[in-house]
Structure formats: C-alpha cells, structure tokens
C-alpha cells in the first residue's frame, strides 16, 4: 500500500534527521571544555573551540588511536580498552539497581496500599524526608554504617571501597537504588490512589473479591503502563547518581571515564556520550513500539 509506504518513509526520514541532530549536538558539546577561557576577563574562546571541534572530527575517523589519560597514574590508555572495561560494569550496576528499585518499590507500594489511611499519611511524610536526603549523604551513611557494623561485630558485610582491580557490586547497587525507590513509590502511590476510586475497583469489591486480590490483579495492572513513562526521570536521576557513586566508591567506571574525557579528550567525550544515550534510545524506541502494538491504536495515555 502506498499510504503505509509513505508513512514508513516518513518515519525513516525523521529517524535519520534525529540521529544526525543528536550526533551534531553531542559533537558541539564535546568541545565545551575549550569554550571558556580566563585571561584577565572571561573570554568565550571561539577559535580554540572550533579548533577542538575540527581535531575531534578528524580523530573520529580513527577511533582506535584515541587515548585517555588516567589522572591518578598519568598513564595513557587506549580509549577502546577503557570503555570496553568499564561500560558493562557500570551499566550492570545501573541495571541491577534499576531492577532492585522497581522490585522494592512495587512490594512497598503494595504494602502501603493495604495499610489504613492514617498510617499512609505518616508514610508520605517519611517519603518526603527520604526525598530530601542528598545522594551523597545516602552513600556516605551506608558506608559508615558498614564500617560501624564491622567495628562492632568484626564482620565486614560488603566491601565499601574499591582497591586495585577488584569489583564491588552489592553496596553501589543498593545506594543507587535508594533514591529512585522513593521517587517510584511516591508516583506509584499517587497513581494507585487515583485509580482506586474508579468504578471497576468498587465493582470488584462488591463481587466479593478480597482487597489483596483486587489491588494486585486489577489495580496494579492498570498502573503498570504509567510506569514506562516514569522510568525516564528515574534513569536520569540514576545516571547522575552513578557518577557520584563511582567517585565515592573509587570505582573505575564509565561515568568516571566520561568525566575524565570531558576535559582531556573531546573525541572520547563524544563517543562516551553516544554510548550512554544509545541503550536508552533503543529501550524507549522498542518500548513505545511495543506499547503501541499492545494498546492498539486509539488509546492514548499521558
């Protein structure tokens, strides 16, 4: 059908424009460290900036030759090694924390829904309190708690700091999961409460189904879909927290490499940014496509 074909063409065209724009945008950001200079007054150093951009452009054709200077040792490492080494480690921490956060927030919001209303208000206060805690604070407190436990019992629960080549998982994942949990629970509870007053829930109760069953089967199913739309801010939050966690746990992770690259090697910075966005781009493209198919056309959510 020509109409469908035209639609396909349009989607492909838009996709191409989008990709080129993103690439260009990151390209312009990659040289940002040479934009500002200070020489008796603040100078926006366009010459230097453009020079950086041209050299970045040239280097992009030979990715294997890009090297990253690791600050602590002062040694140069090939970019491909650094990224390959740290990328999967950092993203596995991110993914594990994400799964953990979802799991915990679902269990907790289910439990909170079962609680009486008065207790619920108390829970909301507590969530507000938890929301105010800066990410750094949570990490530091957990680290100190593990040390305190170690001093008291002589038993080191988890490693709190990376030394040398070893890799730690448990504590970084837990720390990274804490903040999204409060955000997710808050949103879940809000959606659940909006949904709870709708007639079909009442109908379910009137048919004699228990609260546990109705909440889990009927209510949660309808709140699930909203989750997809809330996952993006969660990822944004987690990505910036990931950097903090890598710094505080002394993890040689991807975000730390990106931080280094942002000032030492613009082409590496450009590649790093693309690598960060790529998985999310894939997830959201596939996800929205699946949702579209699943919900069929005509139903929209916002």
């Amino acid at each position: 059908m020509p109409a469908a074909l035209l639609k396909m063409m349009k989607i492909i065209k838009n996709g191409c424009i989008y990709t080129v724009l993103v690439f260009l945008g990151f390209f312009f950001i990659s040289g940002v460290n040479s934009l500002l200079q200070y020489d008796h007054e603040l100078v926006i150093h366009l010459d230097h900036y453009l020079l950086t951009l041209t050299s970045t452009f040239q280097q992009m054709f030979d990715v294997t030759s890009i090297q990253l200077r690791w600050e602590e040792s002062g040694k140069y490492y090939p970019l491909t090694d650094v990224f390959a080494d740290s990328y999967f480690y950092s993203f596995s921490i991110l993914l594990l924390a994400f799964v953990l956060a979802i799991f915990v927030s679902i269990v907790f919001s289910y439990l909170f829904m079962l609680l009486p209303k008065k207790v619920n208000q108390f829970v909301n206060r507590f969530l507000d309190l938890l929301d105010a805690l800066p990410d750094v604070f949570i990490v530091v407190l957990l680290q100190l708690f593990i040390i305190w436990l170690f001093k008291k019992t002589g038993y080191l629960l988890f490693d709190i700091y990376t030394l040398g080549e070893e890799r730690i998982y448990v504590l970084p994942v837990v720390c990274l999961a804490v903040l999204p949990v409060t955000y997710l629970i808050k949103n879940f509870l809000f959606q659940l409460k909006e949904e709870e007053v709708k007639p079909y829930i009442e109908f379910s109760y009137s048919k004699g189904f228990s609260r546990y069953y109705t909440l889990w089967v009927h209510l949660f199913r309808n709140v699930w879909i909203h989750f997809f739309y809330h996952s993006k801010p969660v990822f944004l939050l987690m990505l910036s927290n990931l950097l903090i966690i890598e710094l505080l746990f002394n993890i040689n992770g991807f975000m730390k490499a990106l931080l280094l690259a942002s000032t030492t090697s613009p082409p590496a910075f450009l590649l790093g940014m693309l690598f960060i966005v790529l998985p999310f781009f894939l997830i959201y493209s596939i996800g929205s496509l699946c949702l579209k198919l699943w919900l069929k056309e005509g139903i929209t959510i916002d």
Partner: protein
Amino acid sequence: MTRRAKLGVMVPLIFIAILLASSFILPYIYPEYDRETSSYLKDSSGDIIAAPPYTPGEMPPMGSDKMGRNVAVLLIAGAKYTILAAIGIAFMRMVIGFLFGLFYTFLSRRVVKHVKALAEVFQFIPLVIIVYALLFYVDKAFQTNALGSTNYLIIQMLAISIVVVPSLGIYIGEEMKIFMRNEFIEASRTMGGTKKHLITTHLWPQFRRHSVVLFSEQISQTLALLIQLGIIYITLGGLRKINFGIGGTDPEYFTVSNEWAAMISINLTQIFVNPWLVVAPLVFFATLIFLVNTISSNLKVLLLNSGQVKGSGKSEDYEEFVDTPLSSQGSFDFVSFEEKSG
C-alpha cells in the same frame, strides 16, 4: 487546608531566615570562631584527654576539624554563602528559563519538535560533567591566581544556571505552549494582539504565578547539584590547592568561606577517619533541602491548587466547600487585575 499550607510555608521560611541571620551575626559576636583553638582538651585535673580533630563527643555538637575549630560554628558561618548562592543561581535559572521559554514558544512547530527531542537526549548527560567541562580552564586560571575568587564565583553561578536550559527551559516552554492554546489567546490574536502584548498581558502573569513554585524547586535542585560538584572539588568561590607529600603529590584543599559544599570537599579524604567532618555539612544540606522541599509542596497547594492532597474525608470536603467562595473570589480578582494593568 489553606491555613495549614500557609503555616507549612512560613515555618520553614522562618527557620531559614534565622539560619541566615545567625550566619551574618556570628562573625561579629564571636570573631575568633575560625581561629585555631588550644591544641589539646584537658579535663578538670589538667590531664590531656583529647587532641584535635575532636569527635562530636569531645566537642559537641558536631566535633571539630584538624585545627580544633568547632564544625557546627564554621558551618553556620558558611551558611550565608551557600544559601544566598543557591537562591541567586535559582533566580538566574528562572530568568534564563523564562527567556528560553519565550523563544521556544514562538518557534515554528517543525523546529520545536527537533529542539525538544534534542533536549531530551541531552538530559542523559549528568549536569555535573557539563559544568566540570565548562569550568575546566577557568578553574585552572583560578588555581594560578589569575582569577579572583569573586569573579570565579560569578562565572560558576552563570555556568550552573545555563546548563539547566535543556530541562527547565524546555519545561517552561512546553507549559507556555499549552497555555497559549487557550481560547482567550486565540481571541487576543484575532483582535490584533502583538507578540509583545501576548507576553506582557498573558504569559508573564501566568508565569509569575507558577514561577514561585518552580523557583523554590530550583533552589533544592541547585543545592543537590552543589553537593555533587563538591565531590569533584568544584565549589563556589573556588578551593585553594596546596600540594604536600613527596614531590607534591598529596593535594590538600582549603576554603576561605566555609561554604558547605567546600566543607565536604576539603574533608572528603578523611571520610573514614573522621566521618563527622563530612557528615556534618551533609546534615546541614539535608535539613535545608528538606525545608525548601516543604516550602515547595505547600506552595503548590496554595498557588496552583494541584496539591497531591485531595479531600479524602467528608469533614474536610465540607471545610473546603466553606473555604472556596472566599479564596476563589480573591484569585479571580487578582487575575483580572493583572490583565487590566498589563
């Protein structure tokens, strides 16, 4: 309902005001707060019981640093820099956000689609990294004394404000776009309302009402960003770096202002040895962020009537019913007054 919300705004505000006031007064009534104290603590019989840094138990409430100075006092003295800088940055963000929002609202639809998509992608890059990269050479100039602390502070505030355009700017722009779909805007356009007229009579009053909430939300976000920047040794007004150790490999950082984020960064290396030095500023930060968050959520209830707290019980519904005529009358007057005056 509204009374409780008003209280929820006033009480935290008073707390912050007291903190600010004491921060300004402290250097006058206690000028030697940041001098080195006696190097040992002695008990009543004259025996030495502790050497600095004192633990919170030895020097309440939050211990002392390596020079024996009371951390809590230092933090109160530094509060003015942190709070005022956060307010300043939040204000600049609002100005930049509003200007960008206007620009965004009047862009053609085809361009807007791409700008929005781009901005969404940029949000994946942590702000800390962008600020760090932006300030790289400026920080170097500061380290070599080519740049004064005050100028550095201004540049930093600008940088921290401008990086928020992809998130806040687009958000404000989108809100404005939704607002522009109102029928009265269309009517205004039909009757020959220019862009300037639309901005001054419709967009600006609308923005002003929302901006109070946005502003206080930006303050708490700025505070969170300041902590994160503290971790990578970028703090307001800069840190002096002096290298110790063999071959100058062991950098030690100093702050003049005792600004909170700076207090975190200078003590970061001692976190496992003297944890209170890092925890104390973080506690101050967390308290301040909590206060500001409380203000924002109560302002939301007061100004936007979209608070998450909806009347749940019957008695509350009744109260609201009694309240409504008065409050809605007030807000109606307010809006119409705005429109006439503009």
